[in-house]
């Protein structure tokens, strides 16, 4: 019997929601790491009981946690409780939260990016926004951080090294923070081409490597952002999220600050597919697990009013890869709803029918077991939801 495990990161802890394949009755576990901001949790496809979690705090900084038993117990990788530093003799412990920008790989001074006022500002590590485990190696995991950079661990999260070619390829000094900070929030690993990785940064844009992270280039052609000095600039676009169906890794869907976009050539060129959406501002976007032309967004009124239009929480689904959208409302509040759905807070399972999940800043996590036709809240009163991921377990 299949099972699903929904990993929810919130402003005040993590929650794990589990159900059988019917997805009607749910067990809720948590809060894990109560009181901490849990930006993201994600399970390893290579070992589903291995889950990585980003735990952070304005007081105590960044912590990386890892579970090897499906979220029942957690450790800071390489630092089991009770073991002192370098005892027994070996590498130092307590390194799993050490994210140090690397300036050695390119030989270039990667020291500044653009600040809000247009001046240059030093790169300063703040937190991990997104963790992306390798599809085939349980010890390899990528971390997207603020200030924007990509790190990789090949030892299960014990140690992290920056893939500095991203910041070093030349446009880094033109990257600028969005309202939420200058975060690298999206990491997509091409399942068919191990050398290809897509990432997205707010507010710099989308980038791609074809050689495993050594060399990068911006992939923002076709994006048009009226709120920046050059609306068609090579970098500077506020990309909110990018999604891909693993069966078609060259086809990407993007929720930009404004505009829903798609690319059919691995990001070389984007075209707008907002179509008949009531507003094309938003944060999340995702793709049906089995129908690569079926995509989901949650339109938000505007950049100044981060809540659904008319107080109606509506998921919009396109079965045509964009342009033609239908509102999905059954089970969702259709009056007086003023929550937001943040960029990493939507996920799909791989059951048949495809399950779709999203979390809100009001603390609800909604699930649809029929590809969006009907929705039910799994939980309704969590802290503000920062991220939602789902694992489909055999």
């Amino acid at each position: 019997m299949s099972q699903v495990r929904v990993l929810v990161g919130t402003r005040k802890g993590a929650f794990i929601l589990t159900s059988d394949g019917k997805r009607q009755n749910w067990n809720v576990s948590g809060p894990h790491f109560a009181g901490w901001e849990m930006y993201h949790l994600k399970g390893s496809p290579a070992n589903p009981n291995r889950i990585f979690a980003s735990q952070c705090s304005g007081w105590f900084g960044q912590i990386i946690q890892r579970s090897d038993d499906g979220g029942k117990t957690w450790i800071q990788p390489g630092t089991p409780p009770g073991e002192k530093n370098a005892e027994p003799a070996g590498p130092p412990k307590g390194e799993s939260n050490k994210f140090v920008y690397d300036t050695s790989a390119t030989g270039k001074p990667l020291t500044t990016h653009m600040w809000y006022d247009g001046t240059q500002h030093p790169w300063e590590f703040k937190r991990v926004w997104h963790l992306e485990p390798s599809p085939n190696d349980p010890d390899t995991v990528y971390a997207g951080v603020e200030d924007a950079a990509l790190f990789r661990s090949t030892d299960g999260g014990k140690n992290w090294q920056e893939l500095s070619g991203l910041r070093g390829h030349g446009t880094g000094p033109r990257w600028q923070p969005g309202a939420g900070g200058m975060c690298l929030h999206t990491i997509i690993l091409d399942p068919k081409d191990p050398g290809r990785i897509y990432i997205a940064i707010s507010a710099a844009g989308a980038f791609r490597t074809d050689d495993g992270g050594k060399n990068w280039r911006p992939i923002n052609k076709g994006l048009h952002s009226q709120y920046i000095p050059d609306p068609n600039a090579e970098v500077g676009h506020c990309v909110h999220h990018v999604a891909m169906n693993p069966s078609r890794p060259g086809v990407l869907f993007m929720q930009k600050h404004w505009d829903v976009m798609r690319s059919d050539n691995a990001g070389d060129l984007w075209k707008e597919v907002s179509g008949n959406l009531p507003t094309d501002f938003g944060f999340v976007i995702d793709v049906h697990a089995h129908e690569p032309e079926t995509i989901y967004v949650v339109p938000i009124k505007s950049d100044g009013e981060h809540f659904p239009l008319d107080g109606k929480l509506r998921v919009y689904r396109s079965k045509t890869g964009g342009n033609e959208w239908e509102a999905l409302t059954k089970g969702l509040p259709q009056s007086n709803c003023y929550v937001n759905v943040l960029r990493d807070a939507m996920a799909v399972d791989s059951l048949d029918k495809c399950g779709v999940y999203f979390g809100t800043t009001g603390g609800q996590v909604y699930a649809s077991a029929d590809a969006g036709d009907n929705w039910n809240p799994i939980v309704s009163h969590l802290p503000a939801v920062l991220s939602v991921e789902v694992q489909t377990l055999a």
Partner: protein
Amino acid sequence: MIRVALPGHLRALAHVNAEVQLDITGPVTQRSVLDALEAQYPMLRGTIRDHVTQERRPFLRFFACEEDYSLEPPDTPLPDAIASGKEPLLIIGAIAGG
């Protein structure tokens, strides 16, 4: 034997329920106390002071014998009452909000 009182979230990380006790040889200073604390509880590395710069995280303060030592140089000796274990070194999270 030195006593250190940690904020609740750091006690949870360190898997301790109360004050921690440390043995320190040599001068008892902020630096020597934090070195000993991180050696005994390596999961706290980076949470009190920066991994690289070793600077105190901005929203944490160090109090000894009702005095704020946060802005003292890290090698300044702490009071005798701390060195003898009569009083704990308090590591306190700044309170924000209204």
